[in-house]
């Protein structure tokens, strides 16, 4: 259907199998990299323009160059497979279909930064995929790609899986560090940044699974080749995830900057029952939503999404048809943030609860006219006032949904029924308990 030759999710049967992977040239980038100087590798990754695929789009080569070269301390790499942002299901696809390319990328990253231990943090729910990745790691150990004296180079690296246990916040990089250390997954203040003070106080880099899976082809074909794929400011392929009211949901690997309408209509088979689109989440539940009338000609990469006040995030696209109850959807998303807040910062801990309470009463036809402004106010007070970016992630969907779908909120408020409330405090408490 597409002429694009996938970089990660290749259409080769049984590519997850190490023998098949090697038959198609797998692990030759590692061999090549081990003959290169670490700084040459970092230079190549910089040249590629590869940006992190975990949501923040930070340039990968630059991140690697922050790692101190000379240090007495051990250094660590954490591969972020927490993948708990609602509507995101791409890293799972890599564990299942191409685990060795991710492992190979991890090994090259370790060599480039002088790291001897890498942890792959995988959300606890992904048990079947943990088993798959462990099998791939074991196979790579037995072939001598991981472990002591890799391919006779004198360089040694170990890769271990760390299984999470159900906490979205552990995807935030410093919460992830605490979780690997065996603590509660509470984000840390930055600075100090992980490159100087990460796991057990040692220099640490955190990269997303998809980011690392892009490394072997960059080493094989060169940074320049990669930099020419898709949108120049955000090059490469992206693993777009389509879900919601769509005929053919799933993960589609396409060049960055692919038209959103192509994703939906050409690849995704269009909207279920041929309905019109009301709202779209472009990159996981945290990203500001778009209106159906904003998508014509919109290219899906971080640069172009900024023009509609949103971001690419994880590339998880949720399509919602014309019948969707926007308030209900935003309430459900806010319930998620309320449930997942780690509770360290007052604006986030209290604010998420307040937003949920207000959204709940608007949804139930008990909203007051001033509730919409109140909701905006709470969201604005969370945004930018917290230790980690979770606060923004919780505030954005609410704030932008109000901005873009104000009529939906106003309608629910204006249709509100006056309930005989004798005791205001009591009624508030009832709403919270819901």
């Amino acid at each position, binding site marked *: 259907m597409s002429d694009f030759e996938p970089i990660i999710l290749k259409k080769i049967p049984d590519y997850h199998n190490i023998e098949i992977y090697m038959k198609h040239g797998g692990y030759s980038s590692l061999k090549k990299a081990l003959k290169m100087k670490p700084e040459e590798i970092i230079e190549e990754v910089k040249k590629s323009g590869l940006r992190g695929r975990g949501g923040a789009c930070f340039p990968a080569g630059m991140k690697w160059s922050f790692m101190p070269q000379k240090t007495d301390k*051990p250094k660590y790499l954490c591969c972020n497979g927490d*993948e*708990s*942002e*609602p*509507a*995101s*299901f791409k890293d*799972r696809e890599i564990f299942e279909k191409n685990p060795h390319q991710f492992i190979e990328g991890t090994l090259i990253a370790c060599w480039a930064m002088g790291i001897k231990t890498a*942890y792959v943090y995988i*959300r*606890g*729910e*992904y*048990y*079947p995929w943990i088993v798959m990745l462990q099998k791939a790691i074991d196979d790579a150990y037995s072939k001598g790609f991981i472990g002591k004296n890799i391919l006779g180079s004198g360089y040694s690296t*170990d890769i*271990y899986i*760390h*299984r*999470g*246990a*159900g*906490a*979205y916040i552990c995807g935030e990089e410093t919460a992830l560090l605490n*979780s*690997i*250390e*065996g*603590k*509660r*997954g509470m984000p840390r203040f930055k600075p100090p940044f992980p490159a100087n003070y990460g796991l*057990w106080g040692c220099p640490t880099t955190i990269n997303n699974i998809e980011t690392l899976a892009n490394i072997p082809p960059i080493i094989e074909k060169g940074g320049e080749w990669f930099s020419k794929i898709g949108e120049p400011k955000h090059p490469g392929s992206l693993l777009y*995830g*389509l*879900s*919601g*009211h769509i005929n053919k*949901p*799933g*993960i589609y690997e396409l060049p960055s900057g692919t038209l959103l309408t192509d994703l939906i209509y050409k690849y995704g088979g269009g909207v279920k029952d041929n309905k019109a689109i009301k709202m779209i*989440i472009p990159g996981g*539940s945290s990203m500001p939503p778009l209106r159906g009338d904003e998508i014509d000609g919109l290219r899906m990469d971080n640069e172009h999404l900024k023009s509609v006040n949103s971001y690419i995030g994880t590339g*998880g696209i*949720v399509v*919602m048809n014309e019948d*969707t109850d926007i308030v209900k*959807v935003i309430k*459900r*998303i806010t319930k*998620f943030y309320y*449930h*997942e807040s780690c509770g360290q910062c007052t604006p986030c801990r209290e604010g998420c609860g307040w937003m949920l309470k207000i959204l709940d009463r608007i949804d139930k036809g008990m909203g007051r006219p001033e509730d919409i402004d109140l909701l905006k106010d709470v969201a604005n007070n969370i945004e930018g006032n917290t230790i980690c970016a979770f606060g923004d992630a919780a505030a954005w969907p609410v704030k932008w949904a109000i901005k873009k779908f104000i009529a939906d909120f106003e309608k629910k408020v204006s249709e509100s029924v006056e309930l005989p409330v004798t005791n205001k405090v009591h009624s508030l408490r009832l709403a919270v308990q819901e």
Partner: protein
Amino acid sequence: MEIKFTEENLKKLEEAKSHYPTNDAALMSALWLAQYQFGWLSNDVMKYVGDLLNIPYEHVLGVAEFYTMYNKKPVGKHHLQVCTNVSCMLCGGYDVVDYISNKLDIGVGETTPDGKFTLIEAECLGSCGTAPMMQINDYYEENLTKDKIDEILEKLSKS
């Protein structure tokens, strides 16, 4: 019942400890092993795990409480965790919850009297492209329909 890891689990714990520079870091692995062996994490189990790793009970409790997948109370043999987050909600996730709730005659958070099934609502499980879906213990059941749910519950109720 005496609380003690099997030989196999003790070996697995040693293996986990060898992955990290500190014992503390093996706590999450230890709690997983404990949950598989004892079904859930009672106070006594948490104390046992703490003693094994030389970690104060309060710290073990704090960690166990933080992560939702650690069961702090007993759950049924089959833990039905139905996703109702955004993509699943749009594809009928709440209908799945209602259907199972009616069929098993239990509410969300409840366990059937025979101890076979516990039903809970889950947050996004990373399976949004195959919504609606649920996780049963360690495994995923995707693209759920009423017929498929009937079939799954029928099979599980016999096991």
